[in-house]
Every structure is written in C-alpha cells, then in structure tokens.
C-alpha cells in the first residue's frame, strides 16, 4: 500500500499528438510527431542491439521506413489491437527488426570486434559472433590454428571476458540473440572433454526440466540462464513477487538435482 497517496486520483488520459493526428487522417503530421517523440527510445534500442556502431543510422532509417510505410499501418495496428504498453511494444518491434537487419547484413560482410579485446578474444569474437560457431568449436579452431597448448580453462576466461566487453558496449540484448553466454567460471571444467560431459548432462538436464511445470521451467531459464532480475521474472511468469521467484526457482533446482542423482548422474 502506498502510504503517501492511499487513494490515487485517476490519471487523466492524454492522447499523444501523433495519435490525434493519425486519427484525424494527417499521416505526415502524425509521423513527424511520432518520430520526434520516440526517436530517443528507438535509437537507444538500436544502440543496445547492433554490434557495429556505424550501423545505427542505417538501421534507424530502415526501421523508420518500416514504421511509416502504408500510412503507418504497423503503428495503426497496435493502436487498434495491441494490449502491451506502446513503449514496450515499440522496443520489441525495433529490437526484432534490428536483429533481422544484422542477420541479413552479417552474412555479407565482416563484423568488426569491439575495442578492448586481446588478440585471442578477437578470434573468439570472430568465430562466435561473426561465424556463429559454438563455444567448443571455437576452442578447437583456435587450438588448431593458433595455439594448440591453450588450456580450456584459460579459453573459458577469455570467452567470458569477450561476452562482457560486448555487453558493456552494446548491452545484454546484443548477445542474447547469439549462441548463449559461456558456462560460469565457477564450473571446474579444465578440458574440452569436461565441456562435452557438460553438454551431455545438459541434455539429461533438459529432459529432467521437462518434468517441471512450464512456468517453473521458464522461470529457471529466465532467472538462472538469461539472468533477468527476479522482479521481471515474477512479472513474466505471473508470480506475486521476486521472493516467490527465489523460493520456487531454488526449490525446483533442488528437485532437479535430486532427480539427476536418482538417475545415476555422478560426476565423480
């Protein structure tokens, strides 16, 4: 309960200028008003999605073209049918189109690594982000071509740092449409064999997770793997609050661990 305003006055409904112009049939005026109002949100979303900074303007132009096309048909559809808040919907659409643009473009030209990477990390970046290879494939390629004495543990550290540099520059959204982030550095794999072992247990794990309820399975994926804040996970899966997420996720993980042990899974 909010003690400062126990009875919130009803918020006046304010129609945004662009909506009013759209409703009045003034498409040009509606577009001008829309882009002026939402330009920052659009460019901010693009900046946190694309890998190459120099692409921002081009992606912005493409997205504007898509949104303004056919008398702003896409925007009109949301106005008429959408139930999400407009800003969330706009971020979703912009992110999706920016990712599509990158998928189209990255097949045609070399992606530049961000600054701040070592030589090894640049190779990691190239194999994973430009060529879309898996982590184990990348390790094997680097060993074959550059350093066949590279320990897997060292590779994992450089791999994690490469993701961190990417996320610092472009945010988590930029790495989330690509092969997943590397295993935690708390893991004790010290060789590719152990990584493959993990992959096999990953398959076993996926099978055990299937026994959980859909919302618990999704909560584990979003909270543990995708590292979303507990409050956001609660909102997405429909649980009352962050505490419910902590409690139910850790309880579910305990059940999973028990199930794996009963299946004879034993790393020793």
């Amino acid at each position, binding site marked *: 309960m909010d003690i400062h305003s126990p009875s919130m006055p009803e918020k006046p409904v304010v129609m945004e200028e662009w909506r009013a112009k759209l409703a009045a049939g003034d498409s040009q005026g509606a577009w001008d008003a829309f882009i002026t*109002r939402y330009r920052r949100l659009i460019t901010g979303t693009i900046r946190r999605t694309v890998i190459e900074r120099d692409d921002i303007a081009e992606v912005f132009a493409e997205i504007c073209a898509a949104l303004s096309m056919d008398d702003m048909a896409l925007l009109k559809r949301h106005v008429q049918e959408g139930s*999400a808040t407009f800003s*969330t919907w706009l971020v979703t659409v912009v992110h999706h189109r920016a990712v599509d643009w990158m998928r189209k473009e990255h097949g045609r030209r070399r992606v530049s690594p961000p600054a701040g990477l070592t030589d090894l990390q640049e190779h990691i970046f190239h194999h994973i982000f430009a060529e879309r290879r898996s982590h184990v494939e990348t390790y094997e390629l680097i060993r074959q071509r550059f350093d066949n004495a590279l320990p897997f543990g060292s590779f994992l550290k450089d791999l994690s740092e490469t993701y961190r540099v990417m996320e610092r520059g472009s945010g988590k959204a930029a790495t989330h449409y690509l092969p997943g982030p590397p295993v935690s550095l708390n893991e004790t794999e010290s060789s590719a064999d152990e990584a493959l072992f993990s992959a096999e247990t990953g398959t076993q794990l996926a099978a055990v997770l299937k026994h959980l309820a859909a919302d618990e399975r999704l909560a584990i994926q979003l909270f543990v793997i995708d590292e979303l804040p507990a409050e956001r996970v609660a909102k997405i899966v429909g649980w009352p609050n962050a505490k419910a997420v902590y409690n139910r996720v850790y309880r579910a993980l305990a059940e999973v661990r028990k199930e794996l042990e009963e299946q004879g899974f034993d790393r020793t």
Partner: protein
Amino acid sequence: MSAVGDNPHLDDSTLATIVDGDVSRPEAIAHLSECEDCRRRLSAVAHLVDDAELRTEIESLESGALRSGLPRRWRPASIAAIGAFAAAAVAMLVISLPSKKSESSTPASESIHREGAITTTAPPRIISPSVVASVNDALRWTSVSGADIYRVQVWNTDGRVVFSTDTRDTSVALPTELNKAGATYLWEVKARTGWDRWVSSEFLQFTIR
C-alpha cells in the same frame, strides 16, 4: 498470438504483453519454456526495457510528460536561455565527473570503455536552422568542450539519411541538392568526447522556404 500454424513463433505484440506482465496467456508461457528462440527474444526485450537509460525514457514517455525532444519554437528569449544553459554546462564540467582522457595520459592497459560510465558532458545545442530555414542556410551548433569531431546527420521524412558528415567546425553547409524550397528534414549533431563516446543534440526538424 501467433504460436501455431504457419509461424511457430510468438509475434512481437504477444512478446511485448508478456514482458509487461500480461499473464492471461498460459499457452504462451508453455511455448516460451520450450522454444529457445522466442525465449531469447523475450529476455532480450526484458533486458532492454530494464536498462537504466531506456527505463528512464520509457517512464517519461508513459507518464505523458512532454519530452524536451519536441521541436522547439526558437524565439529571441530562447537565445538568452542558450547562454544561461551553456554557462551552467561549463560549471557542471568543472565540478563533475569523468573527464575526457587524452590519449597521452591514458595508460595502455586502462580501457576507456568502462562498464556503467555515466557522462555529464553537455551535448551540442543546435543554433540553426530550426523549424524554418532559408536556401543556403548552414547548419550551426554550439561547441562542446573536449570534442574533437562533430558528426552531422540529416534525415528526410521517410527516415532515410540524406546527408552525413564529420567536421571539426561547428557549422556545415547543406549540400546544394538538398537545398530545395519546401523540403523538410530532421537533423542532429553528435560530438565525440572520447574514444567511442558521443553526446547527441536534440533531433530538430526544419523546412526550407
């Protein structure tokens, strides 16, 4: 919701409502727990709307507050306001945070691109044109302390970049082919204040008379 039929994946509208917390779609939750593609899109959007800067922008937009990005109607009083703002910006730079590091003083091992850095550098302010321009008017803006390059970009109203240039000056001429009476453009100028650090002006629209 589109999770069956021709397209096996959730559409943008459905994903957006789920990020917002609309839980009246148990079938969408079930799909998300099975489909890695859709889940990764969902978590990417969730990270975006929870990003500090975007969250501030969204809250401002959703509250209905007028954004300072709306086209300004420049009047003589605004010119005085620019002077006052510039003075305040200089004071802010003197007393506040991470200054631009010159190349000679940055240790080689120190990355300029730090996580979570917040810049308080005042952005360039557009002087002219705004709203209306004459043919052959130049694009002009205030200088930014520590900036070594300014990048100007001009869009037409279809969202296409029609002009882009880098300059060390604080003005640039619009190309002749764009100087057509009746043409309307949007433009902004960015100032580079450090390695890969830019501060942007507002987006302004003008029409050539």
